């Protein structure tokens, strides 16, 4: 394992010290337990937005803390959901009296830890709502499973709900909006190479020199199937077809197209993916009216990409366009 780290056990701690050193002017980094908070939190009368999850997906979530997006993020160990005390601390730190929304990706660990934290926060008289994001079409939903995973739509939900919270919308409103984003967003990813959890010291999985994994999870969990690598236009079709069929997205729809890099993917390749996605959607009469291209929800050094489509209406579009000022996503400010 070759990484730019010191001791694997210190990865999260030292990265947070880096965040504190780099962005101390606008973010507070709490330790014991670890929380990244807007420097100006809590904001009186504003719904507080809290998310969190395992580390290794940067810039998500810590890089999305700031005006117009999250109020706080709870970084867990690498690929491990954070603990309830982190979420409780974050919830208290951002509670400006209008309640706190927990944006939770649908993984058992995230859900369970956020549940415990919400119970603890409510016991301290903080109003908490939780919305679970489950947008990954790779693994089909069923009564008997933990449900779909939460992936790319999380980034979009954090941005859009962040904008709504800045408008001082109520907790119920912002939570409903979050559910609406989740209901209109679909994602699927793929990997060309594995990632390596620092504490594990070796690749999570092995892919042959000509293999790819379609439907990969952001922790390197395997997905739908392992295949021979094919030209990217076929890969885009393998990802976009189930996405489009699932919602479904159809002719006349306007979408936000999010082409995400898994962490080790050259940006030039993501633009080729975007080119193919643009063609794929044009052929079906689906119009891309907004886009986001880059590594925003990553899996350490994994090479690969994911595609997220979010059906847009005027409300979502306006909230997407609203100013945001975070280390990871910034415009209009």
């Amino acid at each position: 394992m070759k990484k730019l780290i010191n001791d694997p056990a210190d990865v999260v701690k030292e990265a947070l010290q880096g965040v504190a050193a780099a962005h101390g002017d606008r973010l507070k980094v709490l330790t014991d337990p670890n929380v990244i908070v807007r420097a100006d939190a809590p904001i009186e009368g504003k719904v507080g937005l809290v998310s969190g999850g395992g580390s290794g997906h940067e810039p998500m979530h810590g890089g999305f803390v700031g005006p117009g997006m999250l109020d706080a993020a709870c970084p867990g160990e690498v690929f491990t959901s954070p603990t309830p005390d982190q979420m409780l601390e974050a919830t208290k730190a951002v509670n400006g009296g209008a309640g706190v929304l927990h944006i939770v990706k649908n993984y058992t660990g995230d859900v369970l830890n956020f549940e415990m934290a919400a119970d603890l926060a409510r016991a301290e008289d903080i109003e908490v709502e939780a919305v679970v994001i489950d947008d990954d079409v790779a693994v089909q939903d069923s009564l008997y499973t933990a449900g779909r995973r939460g992936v790319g739509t999380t980034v979009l939900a954090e941005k859009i709900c962040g904008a709504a919270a800045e408008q001082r919308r109520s907790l119920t409103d912002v939570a409903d909006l979050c559910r609406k984003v989740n209901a209109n967003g679909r994602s699927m990813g793929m990997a060309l190479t594995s990632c390596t959890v620092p504490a594990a010291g070796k690749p999570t999985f092995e892919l042959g020199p000509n293999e790819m994994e379609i439907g990969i999870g952001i922790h390197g969990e395997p997905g739908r199937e392992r295949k021979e690598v094919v030209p990217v236009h076929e890969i885009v079709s393998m990802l976009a077809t189930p996405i489009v069929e699932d919602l479904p997205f159809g002719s006349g729809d306007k979408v936000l197209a999010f082409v995400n890099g898994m962490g080790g993917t050259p940006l030039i390749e993501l633009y080729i993916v975007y080119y193919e996605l643009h063609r794929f959607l044009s052929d079906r009469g689906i119009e891309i009216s907004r886009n986001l291209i880059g590594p925003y929800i990553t899996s350490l050094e994994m090479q690969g990409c994911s595609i997220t489509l979010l059906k847009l209406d005027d409300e979502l579009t306006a909230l997407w366009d609203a100013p945001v000022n975070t280390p990871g996503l910034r415009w209009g400010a």
Partner: protein
Amino acid sequence: MSVSYSQVTDWVSAFAVAVAENKEYLTELDSAIGDADHGINMNRGMQAVVGKLGASTADDQTDIGALLKTVGMTLVSTVGGAGGPLYGTLFLQMGASAAGKPELSPQDWADALAAGVAGVQKRGKAERGDKTMLDALMPAVDKLQDALASGASFDDAVQASATAAQEGMTATIPLVAHKGRASYLGERSANHQDPGATSSWLLLRAAADTFSGNGAD
């Protein structure tokens, strides 16, 4: 024959040792069907527990319930993932069941374990056969209760309970996961042993080793 406060401490310590020794193995199992962190997570948590218990200077070692709650709270705030809330709940509910007790009778032990496992089931909403730690824990509880009901010695009962956990663990191999990260694999999760069931077997084996033979008095 009963389980003393210090034996409960010994059990927790023995589990910590077993987790440390099997850290790579548990992570390996998790990388096949999950996200390659179960051993790392459990070890981080159990090391924190060991630190906590070692630092505790309470002379008053009379409340096994309080001890188990401390273990549970420490796991909840250091493990993360699914394992943290689940093992945390297991110990918290065992602690509630054993609240105020300076020692546990065989039936107290069985009741506490049953309460802990019921807590895991309630928190995680999984069923037996979902390929989770419950597949080791539930048979272990059943076997323990049955053995005691049929008049077996505590020694034999905890040994039988550990064996049932082991069988339950092995039985996860062919199963298709329906809960936790492995569930996303569908059919591909079969032919792999569940990491949580494996750590649960270590937990029950540690109990058998600690409480039986010259371990228990």
